[in-house]
């Protein structure tokens, strides 16, 4: 069966490798989780159009 969209990046191994790389980046920077949690809990008043 002939498929369109052939591309070097179509290789599943490369895709999985990229996924693993990003997963490791996330995993090694979980320290930032608390910073983001604080951002979510703190309401930026100027961002929601107040003052």
């Amino acid at each position: 069966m002939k498929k369109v969209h052939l591309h070097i990046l179509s290789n599943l191994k490369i895709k999985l490798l990229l996924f693993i790389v990003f997963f490791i980046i996330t995993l090694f920077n979980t320290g930032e989780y608390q910073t983001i949690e604080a951002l979510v809990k703190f309401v930026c008043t100027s961002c929601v159009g107040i003052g």
Partner: protein
Amino acid sequence: MKLKNKRRLTQIAALVVSNLGFFRILKTGFVCPFLYCYGCPFATFGCPIGIIQNFIVYRQIPWFAIGSLGVYGTLLGRAFCGWACPFGALQDMLNYLRGGKSFRVKPFWYTKFIVLFAVLGAAWYALDTVFCKLCPSGSLFGAIIFRLRYPTYTSTFSQPFYIHMFTLILTVVLALLISRFWCRYLCPLGAIAGAFNKVSIVNISLDADKCKKCNACLDACRMGITKLEDIGNSTDCILCGRCVEACPTKALHFTVKK
């Protein structure tokens, strides 16, 4: 179940999950895969564009956000835009109200990348989350919901609120004229997610043997994609599957790998 109904269900589910921060213990530090303002009093996740801007303001690299967006992107490409984003769902609804009609306009894929770099540059130079003050998604899910939640605290209307309302109304009007206008041309998160379309594990593929070149898929596309080879590959493709539904010969299908 039809793909259209599945898509509506996931869009509703995404809206519910995004607002679980209603129960304060469910306000998390995870990065949202779509544009949802964490200025919303009920937000569960952090908006990736807001997080990136905040880290830029403090001259730090947002590795956790970069990694999370990479994980979402390599798994599903821009599918979150088509299947989950509440602001995208709103634009779908507007298009539905208009009877599915839209002006046929070229995709101009690069405009959202210009917006993305402008957003990052503005945060760097102004030392502020400039985009958040203009974001129409933030206007709807942040500014309006915040005022409804805290009516006494926000009894006075100020200039930033009017700016928010202006961008929201402008985007809604343009989305009524051109389907998914925001997603097509302006969404900076769409630019990041779209860049992963070529390397996403889940994608749409075309069986060239079955394709009759009738262009029913392109006619059904809400993102204005004009070439067959761009389906699933272009940064504009939100993998919503409208083309898959529209194809009379079932030449298009979702694939887990290519």
